[in-house]
């Protein structure tokens, strides 16, 4: 196991709400090997981005527990000064929104040179030329001219490439991509994904890809971890996950996508919403309230992530007798409950 690039064990990140800590990510365990892409999938509010930010130690006020071992060294114990060396160096992150991730007052090339300076990559005199080379490498035409431009002069796709150029500037061993293509058009998305794939192959880096787009996952990932309400509910290789999804949440997600087989037909709808952090019931199966037609006996009292077949992990036992149901009666029922919930929230 020690040949793994990154090993995350029992990662729990809690935020303080009204004086009490509530875990947004709970007991998350996974690993990433060299030259491997692990995708983290889930709805908004499921804890994907919190996981990524915890790995980078970017949550200043949160309480982070567990261990994150990068090449055998626990980085959660690292000092802030050490973290500054790791961030942008061995670990780097592609942020979701290229509109806000860049400094609007700095020329593009200086933003790249800044990271090179911090990590003392290349000789001082070579850094500018290397910055332009990086821009060229991420497929920016006319790199010399773009290097002198300011972020507002570039389109969304171009800006995202600049963000990627900064992320790969110091040849990171682990690249964390937080929804790298969500803000982009499909053709540009395809180009950016190609780029990340090439970089992974060239540098042999591990990639943690965070996304809610299952199409992107199918194309990019080697393994997939599905998150729901702060926990990993299913973990498997990409082929296994798409061909033989087990957890009710994974199956519901896959069924809610428009597909060729059922053009114009009714899409499956997952009832209810992801529960709020401080209103979540932390005992039993967390997905149970959203599949009320499954009897309570099917769920475990304390659901565990178990290896069902080699390499395929599923949480809780409710997957065994799960079936999709979207009859109108249930839709109504759950919606009313949901509103009662909101009612209570509003009165507090």
């Amino acid at each position: 196991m020690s040949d793994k690039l990154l090993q995350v064990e029992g990662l729990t990140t809690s935020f303080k709400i009204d004086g009490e800590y509530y875990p947004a990510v709970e007991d998350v365990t996974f690993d990433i090997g060299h030259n491997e892409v692990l995708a983290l999938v889930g709805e908004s509010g499921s804890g994907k981005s919190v996981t990524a930010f915890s790995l980078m130690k970017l949550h200043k006020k949160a309480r982070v527990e567990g261990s994150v071992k990068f090449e055998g060294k626990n980085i959660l114990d690292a000092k802030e000064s050490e973290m500054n060396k790791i961030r942008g160096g061995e670990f780097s992150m592609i942020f979701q929104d290229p509109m806000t991730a860049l400094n609007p007052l700095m020329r593009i090339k200086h933003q790249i040179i800044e990271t090179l300076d911090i990590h003392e990559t290349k000789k001082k005199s070579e850094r500018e030329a290397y910055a332009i080379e990086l821009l060229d490498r991420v497929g920016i035409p006319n790199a010399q001219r773009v290097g002198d431009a300011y972020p507002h002069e570039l389109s969304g796709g171009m800006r995202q490439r600049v963000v990627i150029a900064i992320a790969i500037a110091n040849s990171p061993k682990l690249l964390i991509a937080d929804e790298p293509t969500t803000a982009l058009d499909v053709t540009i998305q395809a180009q950016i994904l190609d780029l990340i794939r090439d970089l992974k192959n060239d540098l042999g880096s591990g990639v943690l890809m965070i996304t809610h787009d299952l199409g992107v996952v199918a194309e990019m990932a080697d393994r997939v971890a599905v998150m729901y309400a702060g926990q990993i509910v299913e973990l498997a290789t990409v082929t296994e996950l798409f061909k033989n999804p087990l957890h009710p949440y994974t199956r519901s997600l896959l069924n809610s996508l428009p597909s060729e087989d059922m053009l114009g037909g009714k899409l499956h709808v997952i009832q209810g919403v992801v529960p709020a952090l401080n209103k979540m019931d932390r005992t039993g199966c967390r997905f149970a309230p959203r599949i009320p037609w499954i009897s309570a006996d099917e769920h475990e009292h304390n659901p565990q992530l178990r290896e069902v077949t080699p390499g395929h992990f599923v949480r809780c036992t409710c997957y065994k007798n799960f079936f999709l149901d979207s009859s109108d009666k249930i839709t109504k029922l759950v919606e009313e409950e949901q509103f009662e919930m909101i009612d209570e929230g509003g009165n507090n």
Partner: protein
Amino acid sequence: MSEFLLEVKDLKVHYPIKGGFFNTTKDYVRAVDGVSIRIPKGKTYGLVGESGSGKTTTGKAVIGLNHVTDGEILYKGEKLNTGKKVDVSSEIQMIFQDPYSSLNPRKRVFDIVAEPIRNYHRKPKDELIEEVLGLLNKVGLPAGSLYKYPHEFSGGQRQRIGVARAIALNPELIIADEPVSALDVSVQAQVLNFMQEIQQDMGLTMLFIAHDLGVVRHMCEWIGIMYHGRLVEEGPAEVIFNNPQHIYTKRLIAAIPDTNVDNIERNLQRREEVRIEYEKHFHEYLDEDGKPFPLVSISENHKVALPPKGGEHVNA
């Protein structure tokens, strides 16, 4: 004439570029440059394109939120953009992209949904309440939400409020501008399902603007692909997806990620082939101004913007 509820003929929306010492008009940004669309009653027309292709501008021009430089917008055979006031705003409504910013945070759901009704009819309050309750019921929101504020709802529920407002005056045409692109897949499914239900119940005609081809394919009978302010291809959904002719359409379709893991190798290969073809031949599909050529019919209901003379690669 009455066969089509909405007919857009050669629509042009140009914005002047000002500059120089006297701030004179130097040139125009041709955001929409000759778009023609026809939507039969009760059908859904999908307008697809990348950001900046002019699809939202087209939608806004139809509803009168943008000026029209040239061209005709005919609604039930009647010209809308005459300068004279033709009041059809109760019959054409819009659903906006972002459910977070399109609802006034300081108004209650009742006021938001009742606003269009108040604009057109004078009604006593109890009647109004009854009508709003009926609308909320139609979009699947419980009566208890009447006096709540938008922030008390989730994204999908907010989009429903937006839809309730749009259908308040029993419109005939709805312009939906990226109604689901800000939503999670599970919520997206919810909104798409019930938009279809409402369309069937009320016999609505829809202009559905989106960049997600998977969603458009699911919702629309007819699709138009836009590039740089012009349509490059138009036809029934199945024709566009199974037999795309324009290189730009081919590229868009090849770029859709597929969730079927067996097809991935094949898709990547196909995408690479299309990319090479695109880079080699794309300029042949554009005129000297970098605009697509006018549409020509290649079969009964399939139109493509092919170069005037055609080329040997075009039909390959």
